[in-house]
């Protein structure tokens, strides 16, 4: 059975904290008080900050931004088959929230990518993401 995306993200941010702590702190700063609820193929989880980044299974309760997507759409983005704006326009990535919260979620995504490309553990997690159902 494929590892849940929430589990992969939890492991990913855990590695970032160990491997690239300065970049990890930038992700925390970018996220700030925002809670992001993520729905990947119906799998629901939430990302929140504070002292540490936490990935919690299930609905967020009160979420500032909500992202709806699929494992396949995430892989298309990471493989550069589509750009993020194209994915949003095509509806394979849906984003809901106030403008400020959506912008904060976007800044957090960029900070996360900048951190992930500096961390040696992340290519292995990307491969694990690929083993899931398309």
């Amino acid at each position: 059975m494929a590892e849940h995306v929430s589990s992969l993200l939890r492991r990913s941010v855990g590695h970032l904290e160990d491997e690239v702590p300065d970049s990890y702190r930038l992700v925390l700063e970018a996220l700030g008080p925002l809670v992001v609820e993520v729905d990947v193929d119906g799998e629901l989880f939430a990302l929140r900050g504070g002292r540490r980044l936490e990935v919690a299974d299930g609905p967020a309760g009160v979420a500032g931004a909500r992202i709806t997507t699929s494992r396949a759409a995430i892989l298309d983005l990471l493989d550069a088959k589509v750009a993020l704006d194209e994915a949003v326009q095509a509806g394979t990535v849906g984003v809901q929230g106030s403008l400020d919260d959506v912008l904060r979620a976007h800044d957090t995504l960029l900070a996360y990518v900048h951190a992930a490309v500096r961390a040696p553990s992340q290519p292995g997690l990307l491969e694990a993401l690929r083993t899931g159902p398309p």
Partner: protein
Amino acid sequence: MTAVLARSDFIRAPLLVAARPAGFKEWYHFVVHRPGWRLLVNFSLTSEASRAGSPQLTPRVIVIAHDQQWTGAIERFDDSELDVSADLGVMTVGGNRMTVRPDGYRVVIDLPGHDVRGELDLTSVSRPFAVNNQPVGDGRVSWLFVPRLRADGWLRIGRQEIRLEGNVAYHDHNWGRFSWGGDFGWTWGTILPSGPDDPWSLVFQQMTDRRRLRCLYQALWVWRHDEPAAIFPPAAVQTGFRGMLGRAADCTLPPPMRLVLGGEASDVPERIEIAATRAGDVVHAEFRPQSYARLARPSEVHLDRSVVLCETNGTARVTGTINGENIDFVGAGVFELLNG
């Protein structure tokens, strides 16, 4: 050729990293020109902090090819998959291997995860040249280049297999300590004639600050057959970057970097003009980029920035006179632009 290469183009990392690992980088770079097709292969070693915080050499292999457009792969390996031979002439990275021979190089590429394989024999047909300790930002880099080699072998990318037989190629080897994202930019170009019979080979380099407002160094090297025919120092060279190439990159590597780089805007010029004059020798080269790939690296200066190397293919028209001999050919160029 002689054993000049084996003596001068050996792998520096084992010697230099042991003394001072911080910021060390080294890479072997090969460009192969085949009519209608280009190949770029790069073996690199970068001193990075390990998970435990101690320095380690991280090897990477880049293979990109241009047919209708650029495509390829970059793979980062664990340092446990790196081996450098005791004579400093063989670098093995996973299933990939680069061997410095007395007369050239043998490159074996094996990136099964990206469906890329190949074997290249690159035989030097021109004398190498070395440039030592050039400033790059707060650091320095040394480099050695071979303006022209003969390329034989094969490369398979996906379902496409390319055979090379007597095609022309270029090589450079770089090593030093500096930080990606520092206050520097560069333009590095190789121009070779379409056919192996034309004797001229050109190499161009320009180093600038990161915003490209100040030219710190530039030179044009012209080889005829296997010997240097003219070396134009900074004061003898004028370079112009005209217009902007109106197209997006064919590909971005590693692909996830497209998320932070965005998509459409290009800082690749529409054409690059190089004019060099010295002691009666005159050379004009005009390179017209056609398309490009983006190779992205995380900035080592700013955690929220990236450094982008644009690998650009195109045609080059070269005219002039050196030592009373006319130069007039249209060839292939691959220029690397690093704009900070």
